């Protein structure tokens, strides 16, 4: 933990992230009312007409949209990462525990999903199952689990032959209990590092989907706001600049935290740098 805080980038990332969390949590207080409602004249530049960051083509407050959009980004990022971890850990664990043809089949399956262009598949999935928070989370999880499966499988393969696992086998514990209580906790480090980077990826994916008009129609999101600003960029640059900055800072923060975690949990690699 101390190693993590000593890393300047990671500390900055953590602070930024805390700020985004606060923004998401306090959005209903800071900007009461729906971010979809008209709040003043359309296309007001930042600082005018009481709009800190300007207003969009329908007179909606960009700042309110950003505050409310933070919640969607964080939620989708977190939930779809958990879902992707679930799929990836399950497949990786099965492959790493059973080996043989099961391992072979699981790895071919994983490779298939790594070959298919992930973003295109996500677009197709969300379009077919109609855009909603649920279908977006599902689509992001479907396209982002393969790296987890690979990492978990590799960890399992290396842990399987270690002495403490053999000892547990000698004690006559069931395979299931060994996997759950001995192997999985020891494989947690790399999974945590991967997860922090996956949240960043998931937030970018969600933004890209809603940029294309595949966001949840009931939720304000950053990608949607940038998509709205696309066609009127000559008129109102602030409509796409500010949500994009919010997105950039959030993802940057997550990446910094992820790198900090890698260094803290993997001191050997860190020292080599």
């Amino acid at each position: 933990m101390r190693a993590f805080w000593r890393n300047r980038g990671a500390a900055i990332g953590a602070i930024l992230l805390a700020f985004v969390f606060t923004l998401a949590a306090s959005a209903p207080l800071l900007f009461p009312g729906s971010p979809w409602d008209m709040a003043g004249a359309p296309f007001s530049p930042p600082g005018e007409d009481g709009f800190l960051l300007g207003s969009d083509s329908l007179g909606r407050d960009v700042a309110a949209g950003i505050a409310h959009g933070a919640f969607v980004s964080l939620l989708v990022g977190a939930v779809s990462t958990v879902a992707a971890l679930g799929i990836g850990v399950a497949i990786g664990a099965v492959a790493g525990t059973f080996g043989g043809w099961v391992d072979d089949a699981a790895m071919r399956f994983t490779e298939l999903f790594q070959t298919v262009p992930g973003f295109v598949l996500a677009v197709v999935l969300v379009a077919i199952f109609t855009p909603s928070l649920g279908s977006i989370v599902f689509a992001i999880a479907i396209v982002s689990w393969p790296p987890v499966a690979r990492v978990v499988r590799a960890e399992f393969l290396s842990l399987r032959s270690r002495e403490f696992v053999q000892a547990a086998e000698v004690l006559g514990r069931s395979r299931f209990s060994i996997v759950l209580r001995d192997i999985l906790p020891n494989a947690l480090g790399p999974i945590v590092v991967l997860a922090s980077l996956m949240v960043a990826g998931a937030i970018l994916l969600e933004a890209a989907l809603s940029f294309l008009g595949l966001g949840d129609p009931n939720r304000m999101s950053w990608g949607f706001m940038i998509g709205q600003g696309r066609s009127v960029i000559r008129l109102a640059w602030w409509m796409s600049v500010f949500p994009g900055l919010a997105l950039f800072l959030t993802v940057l923060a997550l990446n910094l935290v992820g790198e900090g975690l890698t260094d803290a949990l993997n001191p050997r690699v860190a020292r080599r740098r």
Partner: protein
Amino acid sequence: MIRFLLLRLVKMAAVVLAIVVINFLLIHAAPGDPASVIAGQSGAADPKFLAQLREQFGLDRPLHEQLWRYMRGVLTLDLGVSHRLQRPVAGLILERLPATLLLTGAAFAFAVTAGIALGAAAARRVGSWADSAITVLALGFYATPIFWVGLMLVLVFSVWLNWLPSFGMGTVGTDLHGWALVADVLPYLVLPALTLGLFYMAVYARLTRASMLEVADQDFVRTARAKGAPEGRILRRHILRNALLPVITFAGIQAGQLIGGSILVETVFAWPGIGRLAFEALLARDYQVLLGVFLCTSVLVVLFNLVTDLVYLVADPRMEAA
């Protein structure tokens, strides 16, 4: 060499087959089968007409028979019909494919050349400002959504500076050929290709730098230096050639992302490729076209992977043994 290629081709065929099956299942999951869409458009939704249409399309047959029928269709490039444009999907895609290949090809070429050059420069002077600039740049591009980069480039270079056109692919209403056409399209290509390529440039620069530093420590480099080979030659023939292997591998892995990214870039710049086609199909909920694009991009990725394998084989003949 031939054995390696054959193995690769078999694997490739298996992947394409699996993708075709996934595509078929997705078509079935899509709301509204083709029969009800056509019936709805012709305004006659009575059950008898529907049943007749279903029979005509074979939609009343068992699922595995339909799959077989679909697979035979794909082999003859029959990907269904776009209900929005009333045209075969395969024709639509083939029409748009050259634009996408031009865009992704240009972006890839830019990313590889600029990335390797920057990475090599950074590796030569570790800790210099160029070196830290690349690290910061890579970190930044990792966190920036590609469509936003595109919009910001439009804002700076077309709206504020008015240097480059912001959308389309060539001047509207002109009929140019040869070099005149190239000269006309080129300014339109710059911003989209930069948008798509900048992120990968940063990635390749980082990879080249790390990999060159690793290779530079190895014995054969010291040997080359000891026998008095000129520094430039060591850098090119000994270090760079070996350092490029991981870059090639990574380029192959990222082919899918590059093509996925082209959907977003084509949307931002109204570039008339298959990404733009997918976006239009998305707005009209034209699922046949959307799935056709999915199939086409998947096959492109598989083909690209084959090409990177071949390049790897040429760059490192040892691969054959593995």
